């Protein structure tokens, strides 16, 4: 189970409004933002409902609004320190500390245990005082984590490390034993000396001599450390050095991962597997903390890493032998990142590409919508070239270059400008140009952030440059993909060079950007430019030349992908294909964008329709969900169908996939075009072929709704066994 509370769920000095409803709404939104609730509004509504029965203001100026809600994905604590305080109905006055407890509908016991543990902590004056005095979100998280143990720590520790980390438990057990012989005695003594002023966050009884496991002699204990400071230049490495020296002194094998601005030289998973404890001497978030899941952890500031390295090492050694020690939480086996930790290049690349796409989409959105607005106001002629002295300037550039708001162009230049006026033409030209400029960042941003995902900050400049080269040589988004990956790996490779200490500071700001840009950009320009341009041109020609059955097939396949996992990797692959290729000068890419968005709108709309037509096939919560799904579907938020698909995948997913395929095929066949990457019916102005846009959408929604309704009505009478059948679609 994941952590109950993280720094993103903590808000110090929050001013949300005048009433407790404002506080609850804001905290629900925070929980949803952290990805722990499917619907902030409904979660807040559930809390309001419980709050209405009796208020949750408690004596001692705090409040614990809470609920069990089906819109909560995992047990979650959100914390806000209110300024000014707000009345939560307690007798002794308004509250300044608010804990909002959100538990999934099924988690009766979790909910209860949480409340109990929180209550036990809150009756202690020093706990509430510490909450009120805390300076950072992390302090709150540490305080709460220490007070509220996850309900099943043993289970979590055992379940967390999978794959490579599966050995961590065993290894830790044996190396702990080893430590007892090699350095255990010294460490225990050292720690006992320090325990007088040990951090209040450390486990309650760490020196209780737990290192009694049978010893396996000869091998020193492995202890890991991560150091990181906000600038990532000086302190990170000073702390790393101090800790390494302290490790030598204590006779342990201490391995440090300095997470500086050069990017982290990631610890070998084999070393992590052998480790018995980890020290985090960090002032900023630890990157990829999941790698260390299950290890006993000592958290402190980077400054303590420098000045109190010896004590930290002693505490880590003690924690390694203490079953009660706080452990790094998180599930090593969850999510897309797991294969990456196992060393899979494929998974690492996939993550990098998805990062690139996710950073690129805002450029696509801003650029695409502005261009569409430009066309709407200025007529499609704004993009036409053939103006200016040399006859090679586009109308938009010509208008912007030679006219102004006080000297409007002649409206007749663009017969399709709105109202045919010079004013709208001028505005349209400005919007078009703005959009085109934003769009110009599409490929560089894709490449830049792919490189960033691979090599951290030093990858950005080489990546952006490689992407710009791809644009120059006509490599398109394929060029951006290749360039970004190339730049990322070159930057990461250079960052691994062992350089003298005095040069470390120069690496991220001068050496890596210069050399990585030179190498990757040079390769892109000189060697890869032409082949990539050729591939891109061929691909575009193929897409543009696609008509009849092949276009329909492409539309159907994209539709199937969009509706398969609603926001999952398959859906994202289809969506990335559409958005990354989006190019206003290539009609084929606009058709693909239209097919993808329309297909993605089908699932929520189809289920909304089905719940409206046959409400008795759905339970109360699903019917409520159905109402919301209308709006979600209309705005192209496919995720609106997830609650239905999760509850009954066997019947729901094939049905909506059928609808998505129909919509995708009709959209491609009829040539609907869309120049915006998102927005559903709210970007109709970016659509050409509005009639067929709705025809395609409606057809798919009807097919999917009919299929799911029929599947539900015939399937409802069958035994529950079928419900448990694995999804094999």
């Amino acid at each position, binding site marked *: 189970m994941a952590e109950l509370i993280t720094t993103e769920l903590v808000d110090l000095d929050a001013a949300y409004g005048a009433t407790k409803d404002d506080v609850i709404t804001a905290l629900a939104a925070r929980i949803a933002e952290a990805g722990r609730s499917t619907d902030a509004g409904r979660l807040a509504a559930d809390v309001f409902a*419980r709050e209405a*029965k*009796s*208020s*949750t203001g*408690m*004596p*001692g100026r705090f409040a*614990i609004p*809470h609920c*069990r809600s089906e819109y909560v994905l995992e047990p979650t604590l959100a914390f806000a320190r209110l300024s000014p305080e707000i009345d939560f109905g307690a007798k002794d006055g308004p509250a300044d500390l608010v804990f909002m407890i959100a538990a999934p509908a099924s988690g*009766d*016991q979790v*909910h*209860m*245990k949480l*409340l*109990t*543990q*929180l*209550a*036990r902590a*809150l*009756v202690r004056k020093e706990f509430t005082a510490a909450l009120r005095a805390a300076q950072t979100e992390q302090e709150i998280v540490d305080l709460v984590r220490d007070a509220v143990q996850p309900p099943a720590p043993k289970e979590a520790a055992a379940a967390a490390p999978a794959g490579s980390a599966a050995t961590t438990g065993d290894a830790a057990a044996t190396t702990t034993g080893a430590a007892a012989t090699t350095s255990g005695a010294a460490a225990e003594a050292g720690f006992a000396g320090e325990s007088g002023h040990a951090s209040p966050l450390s486990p309650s009884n760490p020196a209780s001599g737990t290192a009694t496991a049978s010893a396996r002699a000869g091998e020193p204990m492995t202890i890991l450390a991560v150091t990181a400071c906000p600038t990532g230049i000086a302190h990170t490495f000073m702390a790393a050095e101090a800790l390494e020296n302290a490790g030598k002194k204590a006779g342990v094998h201490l391995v440090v991962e300095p997470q500086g601005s050069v990017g982290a030289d990631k610890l070998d998973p084999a070393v992590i597997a052998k480790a018995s404890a980890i020290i985090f001497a960090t002032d900023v978030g630890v990157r990829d903390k999941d790698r260390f899941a299950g290890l006993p952890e000592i958290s402190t500031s980077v400054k303590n890493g420098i000045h109190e390295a010896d004590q930290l090492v002693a505490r880590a050694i003690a924690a390694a032998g203490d079953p009660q020690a706080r452990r790094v939480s998180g599930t090593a086996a969850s999510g897309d990142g797991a294969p990456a930790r196992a060393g899979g290049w494929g998974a690492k690349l996939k993550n990098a590409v998805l990062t690139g796409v996710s950073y690129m989409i805002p450029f696509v959105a801003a650029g695409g919508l502005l261009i569409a607005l430009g066309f709407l106001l200025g007529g499609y002629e704004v993009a036409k070239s053939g103006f200016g002295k040399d006859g090679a300037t586009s109308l938009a550039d010509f208008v912007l270059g030679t006219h102004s708001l006080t000297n409007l162009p002649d409206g007749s230049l663009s017969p399709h400008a709105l109202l045919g006026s010079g004013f709208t033409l001028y505005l349209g030209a400005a919007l078009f140009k703005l959009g085109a400029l934003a769009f110009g960042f599409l490929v560089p941003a894709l490449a830049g952030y792919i490189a960033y995902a691979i090599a951290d900050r030093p990858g950005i400049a080489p990546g952006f440059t490689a992407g710009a080269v791809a644009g120059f040589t006509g490599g398109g988004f394929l060029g951006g993909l290749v360039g970004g990956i190339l730049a990322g790996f070159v930057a990461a490779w250079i960052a691994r060079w062992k350089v003298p200490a005095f040069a470390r500071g120069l690496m991220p700001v001068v050496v890596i950007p210069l050399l990585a840009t030179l190498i990757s950009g040079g390769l892109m320009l000189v060697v890869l430019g032409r082949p990539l341009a050729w591939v891109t041109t061929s691909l575009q020609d193929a897409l543009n030349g696609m008509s009849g059955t092949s276009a329909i097939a492409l539309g159907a396949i994209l539709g199937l992908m969009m509706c398969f996992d609603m926001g999952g990797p398959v859906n994202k692959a289809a969506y990335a294909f559409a958005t990354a290729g989006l190019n206003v000068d290539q009609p084929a890419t606009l058709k693909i964008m239209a097919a993808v968005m329309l297909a993605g709108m089908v699932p929520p709309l189809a289920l909304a329709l089905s719940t409206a037509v046959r409400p008795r096939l759905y339970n109360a919560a699903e019917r409520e969900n159905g109402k919301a799904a209308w709006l979600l579907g209309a705005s192209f938020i496919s995720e609106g169908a997830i609650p239905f698909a999760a509850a009954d995948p066997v019947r729901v997913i094939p049905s909506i996939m059928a609808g998505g395929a129909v919509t995708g095929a009709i959209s491609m066949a009829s040539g609907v075009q869309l120049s915006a990457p998102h927005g559903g019916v709210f970007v109709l102005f970016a659509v050409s072929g509005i009639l067929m846009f709705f025809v395609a959408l409606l057809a798919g929604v009807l097919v999917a709704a009919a299929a799911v309704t029929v599947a539900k009505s015939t399937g409802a009478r069958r035994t529950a066994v079928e419900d448990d059948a694995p999804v094999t679609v």
Partner: protein
Amino acid sequence: MPSITVKVGSSVGLHARPATIISEKAEELDADVTLAVPGGDPVDADSSLMIMTLGASCGDDVVVSSDDEAAMRTIAALVEQDLDAE
């Protein structure tokens, strides 16, 4: 001090809401009533927070004690009741 052992009736145990209802009643009664899980330290029934620290789930035994027998029975009845029911 007289005491009576009852089983928690609220379906999710003595959590915030039932605890608040019980503590409000206890305050009204103007008598010292304590609650405890068997073997545990008693806590004042007029503090919802203290009641929650018991961590009593549905069906758990709770010992209600008070010198004022009427008050004791009133609180015990509340503990037994399903205060979560609408």
